[in-house]
């Protein structure tokens, strides 16, 4: 089989375990993002796939071959580093052709491979420049060019956009996605930015503390997060969580406010402590519903972010209408039917 298979992979630094048994299947040609907060082990996992870190236990399989003992140069991978890692004393063309030169490919073939990659990345006019003469976005493209020239089995990206400004990041995001659609090379992309993960990936792997929390398509993760962590991590602004008690037929907050939960509330018989999750974009201000007090109004242009107090809890809503509300106003909130998520308060796991 092609693609990448990660089975029971562990990483320990002495007594410190940083990855506790990771299993991920990556199909040939798939674009997978590893996403999670700093320190979750996503970069370590990527570096293990690259061969820059040893594997303490488990196996990594690239294109049908276990690579645990294979040197990085023989794994048929190309990696784009966070700081680009361009060779400062080489021109753009030399940077891009370096891996071919090391393999003893003849100069003419290198030249045409570099020119072809430069064409794809719009770097043709910059081939004779040195990295220090390039802007951040151009350096990023050269780093990608260096990877493309190799025509590897797998592309590895380690937070490649985190050093770019916001506008360029959005642009490069589309370029990388477009590039993947053209080349269809298996890609593993590490980021801490869930928007990057959502927009680019065929499949997202959400990680925390060295464990995989959930694997799935971007919208599946958004629609049915497996637990509180994924629910809070995917989506911006984050999902609202209201501690509540579920007993036959209803979900109520501590101060007695009933939360709409439809048929799901019938699930348990005995009263159960739950976290009631509702995304900001699924809340509307209406003539009747849950009483709330406006505490903050943040217009962003297309939409407005509103913060409310309901009982002792705070709640964020995103609305597209331009409401004339002020902090301190009393309003009523309607939750979109069926948009609620229920999680077990103790384990954080999704209910129903």
């Amino acid at each position: 089989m092609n693609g990448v298979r990660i089975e029971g992979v562990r990483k320990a630094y002495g007594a410190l375990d940083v990855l506790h048994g990771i299993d991920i299947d990556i199909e040939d040609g798939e674009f997978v993002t590893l996403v999670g907060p700093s320190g979750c082990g996503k970069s370590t996992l990527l570096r293990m796939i690259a061969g820059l870190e040893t594997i303490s236990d488990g196996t990594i399989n690239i294109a049908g071959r276990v690579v645990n003992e294979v040197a990085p140069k023989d794994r048929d991978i190309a990696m784009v580093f966070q700081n680009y890692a361009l060779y400062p004393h080489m021109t753009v063309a030399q940077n891009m052709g370096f891996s071919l030169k090391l393999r003893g490919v003849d100069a003419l073939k290198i030249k045409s491979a570099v020119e072809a990659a430069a064409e794809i990345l719009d770097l043709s006019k910059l081939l004779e420049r040195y990295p220090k003469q390039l802007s951040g976005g151009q350096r990023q493209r050269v780093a990608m060019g260096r990877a493309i020239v190799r025509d590897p089995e797998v592309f590895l990206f380690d937070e490649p956009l985190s050093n770019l400004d916001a506008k360029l990041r959005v642009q490069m995001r589309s370029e990388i996605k477009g590039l993947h659609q053209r080349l269809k090379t298996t890609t593993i992309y590490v980021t801490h930015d869930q928007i990057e993960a959502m927009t680019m990936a065929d499949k997202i792997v959400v990680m925390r503390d060295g464990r995989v929390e959930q694997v799935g398509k971007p919208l599946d993760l958004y629609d049915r997060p497996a637990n509180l962590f994924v629910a809070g991590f995917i989506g911006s602004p984050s999902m609202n969580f209201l501690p509540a008690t579920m007993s036959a037929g209803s979900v109520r907050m501590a101060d007695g406010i009933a939360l709409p939960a439809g048929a799901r509330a019938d699930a348990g018989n005995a009263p159960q402590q739950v976290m009631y999750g509702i995304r900001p974009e699924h809340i509307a201000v209406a003539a009747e519903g849950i009483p709330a007090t406006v505490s903050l109004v943040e217009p962003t242009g297309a939409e407005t972010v509103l913060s409310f107090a309901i009982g002792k809890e705070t709640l964020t809503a995103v609305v597209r209408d331009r409401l004339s509300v002020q902090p301190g106003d009393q309003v009523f909130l309607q939750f979109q039917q069926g948009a609620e998520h229920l999680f077990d308060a103790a384990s954080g796991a999704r209910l129903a």
Partner: protein
Amino acid sequence: MENRRRDVAVNAVGHAAKAGKTPAFERQRQRFFWLLLAPVLAILAVVTLLPTLYLLVTSFTPLNLANPATAWDFSDPLVNYRTLLTDDRLHNSFWVQAKLSVVTVVLQLLFGLVVALLLNMRTPLMNALRTSFLVPMVLPPIVVAIIWKVLYSPDISPAWWLFQLLGWNVQTPITDASWALTAIIVADTWEWFPFTMIIILAALAMMPEEQREAAEVDGASIWQLTWYITLPYLKGTLLVAGLFRLIDSIKTFPLIYILTDGGPGSVTEVSNYYIFVQSFSFSYIGYSAAVTMVLLAMIVVLSWVIIRAVSGGSNAQE
């Protein structure tokens, strides 16, 4: 960082020039800088500039300690400079100096580089050895000279004890005209390669890990990594370390004084040592002052080259 700050300063001046005159706050800032520099400049003037000026004045006199009155004899101010143009022993000393400097600098760079690359592998053995490599440099130069004097003296040298055991009949190099300079070169290289080594080690420690990893993923073997990535990265550092050693090599004295006394004949007599002989063996203070001025001029030129190289080097790193 440094450059950026300089750019800002240049920009500030540029804007001021456009405006027609330096703004008051900028002048105030400049005054403050001078104020902070003043103590250092004052000390430098007293301990460096004044003696140099005195030396310059003396170089225009035929001062001879046997005749103190000559200290103020300016009747023929250029006599010393005319003499040094035709002084074959001086010219020979420049040639000896050139040979010693070029060969020791090259060897020190080579050894320093190789040892630094080995130490940079950070194996436990290398970590343990790291400090011991610094020993030659931190020993007082006179001690280093005495160590080598012992090593080169057949009666007491452990090396000759070994040679004898092997049945070899080896002459000591320090009294052999064709080997004396080589003996000095060996000792000097041993004493000073730790200097280039430590500078190169520092540069290696600063080398971005990602570049090395990128090359590894690109398919470089350890040799290719060193040749294509590490050495080009170290180019500026090697240049600077080499130039520093070059300047320092002109000051070589204890090794020559202890090991060979400039001999046999004058095969190891470098300019520095020749000046010492002229002033303290022959008491020709005026003449040696003139030679010193010439040597000083050469060092100033070299220093200028270094400063250019250092600032150019840091630009290249960006």
